[in-house]
């Protein structure tokens, strides 16, 4: 059974067709790539899968269960998490709090526990605190735990965002342009990093990228989106040679 399956998904923003007849199956353990020029509809696909919009047509299945029309927090609970193209951290909070809040759905002590500071709450929060710090240590950001995130360097903020996404215990992690604003050296590092978290956390990863080199080195299967439609898909070598892909990218970014 595929981890994620999308059937004939189409989405309209008023009169704008952002995604058209999108199909895919993602198997557990994959690192999948979604590429395409700016405005092709990649982020919209992620927004549809995570429930920010309900597709105009089509169905989405996660672990064999239909999730079309669920709200994002419900989908998040089922095991899909993501990062955002432009960082969306909770800017007034510390890095640690950013990670801890992502444990929200795993909290069992309830409102009574929260209001009356019951033993159950203290124990659970202690456990979450411990787990969150461990997670941050694994990503090498534990020394920033008590810093307010808006004051941290951009690269660290990206990692905090990933730590936060991992805290929800996802099976599928969506990364929206994880290398935005990075140089070549950092890119190499990020590739290794993504492979590492895939193995460490038993993840399936679906990522959007702009930079071809990055996707080519990382993904086993790539889909190319242009004007909301898949114009090509296949393993990296094939995509690289595909004339349609080259045409779509021409002028957009010459530095393939």
């Amino acid at each position, binding site marked *: 059974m595929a981890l994620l399956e999308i059937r004939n998904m189409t989405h309209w923003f008023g009169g704008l067709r952002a995604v058209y007849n999108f199909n895919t199956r993602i198997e557990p353990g994959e690192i999948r790539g979604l590429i395409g020029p700016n405005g092709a509809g990649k982020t919209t696909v992620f927004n549809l899968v995570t429930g920010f919009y309900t597709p105009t047509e089509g169905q989405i299945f996660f672990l064999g269960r239909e999730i079309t029309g669920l709200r994002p927090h419900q989908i*998040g609970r089922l095991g899909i998490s993501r990062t955002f193209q432009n960082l969306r951290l909770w800017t007034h*909070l510390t890095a640690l709090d950013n990670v801890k*809040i992502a444990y929200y759905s795993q909290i069992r002590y309830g409102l009574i526990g929260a209001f009356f500071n019951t033993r159950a709450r203290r124990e659970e929060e202690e456990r979450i605190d*411990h787990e969150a710090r461990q997670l941050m240590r694994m990503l090498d950001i534990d020394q920033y735990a008590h810093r307010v995130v808006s004051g941290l360097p951009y690269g660290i903020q990206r990692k905090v965002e990933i730590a936060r996404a991992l805290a929800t215990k996802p099976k599928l992690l969506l990364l929206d342009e994880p290398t935005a604003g990075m140089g070549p050296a950092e890119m190499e590092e990020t590739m290794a990093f993504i492979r590492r978290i895939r193995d460490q956390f038993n993840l399936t990863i679906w990522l959007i990228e702009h930079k071809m080199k990055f996707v080519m080195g990382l993904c086993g299967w790539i889909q190319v989106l242009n004007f909301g439609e898949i114009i090509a898909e296949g393993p990296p070598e094939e995509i690289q040679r595909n004339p349609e892909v080259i045409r779509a990218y021409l002028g957009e970014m010459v530095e393939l």
Partner: protein
Amino acid sequence: MALRKALTPLLHWFRTRFGHVPVGAWLLGAAVAAFLERLLGPDLAYLLGLGSVPAIFGLSIILKTPSLIPSVLVFVVLMYVIPTLVVAWLSRALFLWWEEQLSVPVYVFLHVLFLFLVLYFWSQVDPYRLLVLRLLGINILLTLSLNLVNGWMGEFSVSVAGFMSVGAYVSSVFMVWGFVHDDVFGPPVFPEFLAPFAFPLALILAGAVTAVTALLVAVPSFRTRGDYLAIITLAYVFIVKSTVENLDFIGGPRGFMNQPEVASFTVVFIWTVLGIWVMWNYVTSILGKATNAVRDNESAAEMMTVDTRKVKIVAFLTHAFWSGVAGGLYAHVLGYINPSSFDLRKSAEILGMLYLGGLNSVSGSIVGPVLFMFLTEILRPFQLAKWLVIPVILIYAMIRRPRGLMGFQELRIPFLTRRQQAKEEARAYGVTGN
């Protein structure tokens, strides 16, 4: 400037001598001072030609008749400063020892107890002080609960007066129907001596009903934020006021009275502490911090599994519940309410306390009302001028500190900070202990 220069050595002396005296010792000192004032205050005030005990440290007396400044100074030094300093100095070792021996909750409880004693003795001297302190407790509840929505959640709600009104009327109706012989509600349904025991029930009922009506503003908050939500909360205030005015059995615009005298200082104090404790617990829990996540980035919160609708409902309903409770206390402290006690001016007043103290801060929600009421009360003899001076001070405060005095930070209490640090070090090294 010159004043500051003159004070520097004094401050230095004070710091070296008293810098390490624990908070608890100060509270004990103040309690002793307040107790002494209760015993000797009236006589001393008479001797000094002050007539009666100066209500709030003589500040309004000074403003009204400056010639009494020396007498007031002598009174304050003899009655408050010396006993507090002496007792605090003498008892410091005891508290340092307790700090070692007692667990945090017990030690905190001890502080609350001493604070209660201070305020209790102080309020016994003068019915006016008693009134002011009870209103202060109520205002703290209102400000803190409003802070949940305006600070932690980042909305701009003005409905606090409306919530108060619902709570005030519901609790009043319940208490008058149950325990008072009244023209409209007839003879009491229950024996009158039960009234103080039923009052907590009345307050909880008031809070619960208020929370239900708050759905009127909480549900629209799913779809809209910011200014439009502010308008909806504004409409809520008008709707409540207008509804009450149209309900004849609770007096309509004439108001409602006859509330039994059940809101003593002790009762108000207990409810205030309870409210602070509950709301403090909430905002320090992860569930509560999710409110901050909704404020800072709602869509990220949703994605990170936070049920943002639930978070919003809980914030609004908690705000409404405690404002309703505060309204119930208010009605029984004053013994008379009418619809215009709860108009937008009331909301503006609470908003003033909130933004003066600072958003997203429990201590700010205590500091704000204390400072605000301190000002209004020393200016009370000047009646109208009070409402000229307070806006000026608030505007000045907002310009100087747009985030309020304690916005986004908490007061640091030394011994709690020390404990916190120890715990933090243990955690950072991955040692899980309690």
